[in-house]
């Protein structure tokens, strides 16, 4: 268990750095979680993060990478719906890393 210090508040994280209480998430927390891993979030990152949050809201799960890739292709175009593009944004794995910044649990079916 670790914590994220932000604006004088301690936010609880699990052993892999995911938010323990998903309801606490704000965009600022997303930025801070990324900063902690030396990532500056760009609009391109946010497109994926926003998409993940909407997907979770609708289906109650974070999509597996394969599902994410296909869905991004449909939504944002073929040039973005491929693993090369997604890994260029999230080199530790688009599912695991983007879900962390999005304040979601690790994707179901993440192996």
């Amino acid at each position: 268990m670790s914590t994220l210090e932000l604006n004088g508040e301690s936010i609880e994280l699990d052993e892999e750095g995911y938010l323990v209480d998903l309801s606490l998430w704000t965009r600022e927390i997303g930025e801070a979680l990324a900063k902690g891993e030396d990532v500056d979030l760009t609009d391109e990152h946010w497109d994926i993060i926003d998409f993940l949050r909407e997907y979770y809201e609708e289906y109650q799960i974070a999509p597996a990478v394969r599902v994410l890739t296909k869905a991004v292709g449909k939504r944002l175009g073929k040039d973005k719906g491929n693993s090369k593009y997604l890994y260029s944004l999230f080199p530790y794995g688009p599912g695991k890393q983007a879900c962390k910044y999005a304040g979601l649990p690790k994707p179901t079916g993440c192996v």
Partner: protein
Amino acid sequence: MATKKFMFVNRKAPYGTVYALESLEVVLISAAFEQDVSLAFIDDGVYQITKGQDTTGIGQKNFSNTYKALGDYEIKKLYVSKESLEERGLTQDDLMDLVWEDEDDDWAEKPSIIMVDRSEMAAVMAEQEVTLSF
């Protein structure tokens, strides 16, 4: 990896026991291995995919919307027992409209639910290489 025909047989109502949720999680995980997955909803399992589920009164997470994501996971064959619905005073109209999107057909939505009688269900079961029961 060789593709095998997997069937998940769901026979319990959701929420009263943990079987339905456990099955759904294993189904989603198995999809990551790109197998030929189908689901069977028999007996009280048909209650897992009824529409309009509202769990606010029992304080449990409503996971019914997750079944709508199955199409994204290439799970497009949900066999539902006609007799099980009839015995419970239900019809296909009481079930969620579960579909998958066909990427090769301009993302057209196609139905995932396949209504079958007992003999048809038995025939589908007989084709499977791996059967997991919940």
